[in-house]
């Protein structure tokens, strides 16, 4: 089934936040962000800005009727700066004017004096200073310290991954409308309508039931609108609260890039110990997470780094410690993979280092240590593993041996170009790691004409979740998808939602839709049973026709629905779902946090131009554990898109802050994401069908985040190509591997950091 939005998408008729027709009298906002990254505000002079024609009001923290606090996990993030600023771009004031242009112009008239304090951008320095967001966490299995004593080989090193700008093509934004009785309706481009509502209620000091948050769709999210859509929505609502006028604010690209957080950069230490036969028996890792100036979601991101610190491998003795370090950057946040990729990069670096020193391909060590069913993860969950199945299938299907010899042959015959391959197995846990968030609700109405509406907590941001919701309802009712419409995501229809995140949105909301539809189905089956005078247990609906046993009866879907209505049977249901069997103990750091894991293996082939230091990804060929994909078109799209985003993170996407904490890569001209020429020439996906995981909706496994991590394979393939050209290269485990690092690595130039 095609994405249900594809028709309006390709015609340019889909409605995004900036496309909503404006009510007359709408005012426009703009945020004044701190011009320095750290300091004490000595004075803030709004006089000239307020005096501008068209400026209606400028809000500061003094205008907040409730609490000046939007921190979700830790209450450490003021909506508007009071006495101090903690990052460049931190909101200080919110200008509201009669046009967006005037609001922007007024920003230039605001004067601020800040006594600057030391700016820290390096997480290791922050840790030295004792600036931690939360207490460090340690996951421990076995006794790594003891196990290292018996290792034949031990390797240590440092691995670093930079951040990543989400670069949703639709920037952040919100539009608030006054409603009666001091209520406010807010259109928000958010992945988390409930988060917006909850923090807005606290800031405005009013109950949540007065705040209707509505989301039709996002022009991309990728985690960047999970927590970070909240402030803009609250700014608009704050202005509406005071002025009783509609207020809109869409950030321009530079504002968005400067003021919002990104994927957390990490700097990490690793130590890996192997036996003579290359079994990894001990692993220690210390992660220094660059959280930015406030917690945001970083503690949860940190946790997932620990969950995935051994990727797809079984290691008997593991000690992994993670520090969430407070720096003077915008609060970093969720981004597809949510700390998992950062953790996986480090173990892959450790294996690569071991392989290079032992003179064997990394794949030998990787394959040897793949986790098997029954093995334990460092956090106590027992694996039901598809790791070896994916690896084996990839190696045979894509003829790994032949590929390897072809690459060697090419390199022997070519001086200016070198090819290399890498294998990247992945293992990603599905569920919010915070158990309580694994719940969802769906409101299903069947109208008396037989048409159906679904409302869930899921936010459509391109991942196709609404299409999957339609598929669930269509399958349960056995009616045409065209009979079903998905409503916007709205806090008045579905309350207390978890954000659309953690790859779990289709599972959680799909299960809730299934529950709601099944309850309605059971009721209308009873109605049908009464009409045809048969037992309800033999009534079936197939393709909108009613059957008793296997016999058709003279009753179709529309007639049955109308009959149920006439009999005063409820045709509405609010389904609730909470993932069973999952738990986690934060004291022991053990439990069963994930409903299931997703596995896969990617083989990446690259070519490096050794004269210029440029490169191409020739092919990524992968076997992915889809379970039983309910929509191959959508799921394939998630793999392709996730992979390319991962390749971008590992290659060209380079976030640059200067020592003052100013973002230098602050526009699309300086921050480059993959274009159509930079994607793998060949991208082949083999669907590994598995049937074990009934906690996935229709056994169709979550697919949003896992493929991003295949992109890590590109880093290691490129690294292998450098080594093919220059075996003595001093290239570091530092992503992204930009053309600059590539050329410096090929010729062993010292990296002038």
């Amino acid at each position: 089934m095609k994405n249900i939005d594809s028709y309006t998408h390709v015609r340019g008729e889909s409605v995004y936040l900036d496309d909503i027709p404006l009510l007359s009298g709408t005012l426009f906002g703009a945020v004044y962000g701190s011009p320095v990254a750290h300091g004490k505000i000595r004075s803030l002079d709004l006089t000239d800005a307020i005096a501008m024609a068209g400026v209606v009001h400028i809000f500061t923290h003094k205008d907040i009727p409730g609490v000046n606090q939007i921190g979700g996990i830790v209450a450490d993030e003021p909506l508007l700066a009071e006495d101090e600023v903690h990052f460049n771009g931190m909101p200080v004031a919110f200008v509201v004017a009669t046009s967006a242009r005037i609001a922007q112009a007024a920003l230039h008239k605001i004067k601020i004096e800040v006594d600057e304090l030391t700016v820290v951008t390096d997480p290791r320095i922050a840790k030295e200073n004792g600036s931690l967001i939360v207490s460090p966490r340690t996951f421990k299995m076995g006794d790594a310290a003891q196990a290292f004593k018996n290792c034949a080989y031990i390797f240590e090193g440092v691995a670093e991954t930079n951040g990543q700008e989400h670069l949703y093509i639709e920037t952040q934004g919100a539009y608030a409308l006054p409603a009666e009785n001091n209520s406010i309706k807010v259109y928000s481009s958010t992945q988390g309508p409930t988060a917006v509502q909850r923090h807005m209620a606290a800031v405005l000091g009013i109950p949540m039931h007065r705040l209707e948050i509505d989301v039709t769709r996002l022009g991309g999210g990728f985690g960047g609108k999970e927590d970070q859509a909240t402030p803009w929505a609250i700014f608009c609502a704050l202005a509406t609260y005071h002025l009783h006028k509609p207020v809109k604010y869409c950030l321009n690209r530079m504002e968005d890039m400067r003021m919002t957080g990104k994927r957390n950069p990490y700097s990490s230490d690793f130590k890996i110990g192997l036996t003579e036969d290359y079994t990894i028996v001990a692993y220690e890792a210390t992660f220094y997470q660059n959280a930015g100036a406030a917690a945001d979601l970083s503690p949860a991101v940190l946790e997932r780094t620990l969950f995935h610190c051994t990727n797809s491998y079984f290691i008997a003795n593991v000690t992994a410690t993670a520090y969430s370090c407070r720096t003077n950057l915008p609060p970093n946040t969720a981004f597809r993979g949510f700390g998992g990729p950062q953790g996986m990069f480090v173990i892959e670096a450790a294996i690569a280092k071991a392989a290079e020193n032992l003179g064997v391909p990394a794949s030998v060590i990787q394959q040897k240590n793949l986790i098997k069913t029954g093995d334990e993860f460092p956090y106590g969950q027992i694996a039901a593993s598809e790791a070896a199945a994916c690896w084996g299938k990839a190696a045979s299907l894509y003829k790994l041996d032949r590929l390897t010899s072809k690459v060697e042959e090419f390199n022997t015959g070519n001086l200016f170009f070198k090819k290399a391959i890498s294998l990247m197995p992945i293992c990603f846990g599905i569920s919010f790691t915070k158990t309580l968030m694994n719940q969802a609700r769906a409101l299903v109405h069947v109208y008396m004409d037989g048409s159906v509406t679904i409302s869930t907590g899921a936010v459509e941001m391109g991942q196709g979740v609404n299409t999957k919701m339609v598929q669930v309802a269509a399958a349960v009712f056995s009616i045409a998808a065209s009979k079903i419409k998905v409503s916007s995501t709205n806090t008045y229809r579905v309350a207390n939602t978890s954000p659309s995140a953690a790859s779990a949105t289709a599972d959680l909301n799909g299960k809730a839709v299934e529950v709601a539809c099944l309850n309605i189905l059971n009721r209308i089956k009873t109605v049908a049973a009464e009409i045809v005078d048969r037992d309800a247990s033999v009534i079936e609906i197939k393709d909108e026709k009613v059957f008793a046993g296997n016999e058709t009866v003279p009753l179709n879907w529309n007639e049955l629905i109308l009959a149920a209505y006439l009999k005063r049977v409820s045709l509405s249901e609010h389904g609730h779902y909470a993932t069973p069997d999952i738990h986690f103990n934060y004291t022991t750091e053990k439990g069963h946090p994930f409903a299931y894991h997703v596995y896969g293996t990617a083989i990446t082939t690259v070519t490096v131009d050794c004269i210029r230091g440029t490169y191409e990804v020739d092919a990524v060929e992968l076997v992915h554990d889809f379970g039983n994909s309910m929509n191959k078109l959508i799921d394939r799209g998630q793999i392709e898109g996730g992979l390319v985003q991962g390749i971008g993170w590992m290659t060209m996407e380079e976030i640059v802050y200067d020592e003052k904490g100013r973002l230098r890569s602050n526009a699309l001209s300086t921050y480059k994401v993959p274009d159509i020429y930079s994607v793998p020439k060949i991208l082949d996906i083999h669907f590994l069908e598995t049937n074990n995981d009934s906690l996935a909706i229709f056994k169709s496994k979550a697919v949003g985040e896992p493929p991003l991590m295949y992109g890590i394979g590109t880093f290691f393939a490129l690294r292998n190509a450098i080594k093919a050209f220059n075996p003595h290269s001093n290239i570091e485990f530092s992503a992204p591997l930009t053309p600059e690092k590539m050329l410096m690595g090929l010729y062993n130039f010292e990296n002038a950091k």
Partner: protein
Amino acid sequence: MLHFILNDKEIKTSLAPGITLLDFIRYQNQLTGTKIGCREGDCGACSVLVGEIKDGNLIYHSVTSCLMALGNAQGKHIVTIEGINTSGLNAVQEAFAEEGATQCGFCTPGFIVSLTGFCITDKKLVYENAIDAINGNICRCTGYKSIERATAIIVKKLTERNADPLQFAVDNNFIPHYFLGIKQRLTDISDSYESNITLSPVKKLAGGTDLYVQQHEELEDMDINFLFDKEILNGITQENNNCVMGASVTAADIAGSSLFQQYFKDLQNHIKLVSSTQIRNMATLAGNFTNASPIGDFTIFFLALNAKLILRNNSEVRAIALRDFYKGYKVLAKEDDEIIEKISFALPAENDLFSFEKVCKRSYLDIASVNSALHVKMDGAVIKEAGLSAGGVGPIPAFLINSSKHLTGKSVSVKLVQEVIEIAQKEIAPISDVRGTAVYKRLLLSQLIKAHFIKLFPSIPLEKMISAS
């Protein structure tokens, strides 16, 4: 009064001609299918088609409407996604929907517009050209593979073309029927536009691809001297052994010029390295020169070729070599009242060799870390004359005079290339910035100089220069 056609609708407006076409489309006409992604021409979400009559033919090309002045729409047909929609899905839209080539959908109208534009040009109907048509469109969701598959389907459909592109496109549900009447309607619109507002200062604007990135809000209030469509500033002609170009010749004009194609066999590869299709349709040569970016691609290209500029003000005309045009960072040897009128250079002779190299973070649609061009005139195995230029290695686009001189009268060898690299290193002063560290830029220029010679002199064994140690 500006006069043009927007989709099927005649527009006459006295709005400020300096506002962007994008704002006019979205906020004056509520055509919200055209999206705002970056407002600097780097994402393509605001792509629209511009149709105009040239040499008696109605031709269309794509532009990013965020960088196009409303004033540059005068006398043209502007097509947004709404103007492409037929009843149901057109052939491009159908392919995108079928292949799942749209996810969040925000970039999608831009892709559809760009590709539909390809479907109505007379460009060769091959897959590579279709991909080139969307090389200025960024998608963050799909990873482009589904877009590639959709494009392949579209190209296959187009290969059945046996009629005039517009007629075929209308007959096969690529575009709506009203397109067939546009040529006549455009002919009826006067193509001259003179601003009647007098504000100061008068801003000179050509394609706008740089000015609108920097100052789109300021331009709204300015009285603008529109140079882009002035006849005297356009055209590429051969005069004796010289190529003479109007100042408003675009990168796309150069790419499409048979003269350039004849004299530069790698032209299409060079051009592909310069921004994107949409930008190349607007970006002018004089804009590239006067912007004075130290890494302007065409500046570097024509520095090596020793191009001459004709400058004009109200009373005088004078010539100046491009190599003498840059006095310091963004300081030009040009008076404020002067405009570049023409650019000329000697066409390469039979024994001439030319190479252009550029490396950036992303191979395409990016600004160079370092770029360089080399032009050599050969006399047998000996270099008679050489021009070596380099961008991104100093405050101005650099002509490397000593390096160039050193090449004169010598035969190419490993030793010579290494000497030139050494001299070049003394002629440059790169700084560390977001496009790379100074150390890297120095290394990169050395590598690009090697690349020039390896490419131009395949029979001379230069491999030794490329080794890890």
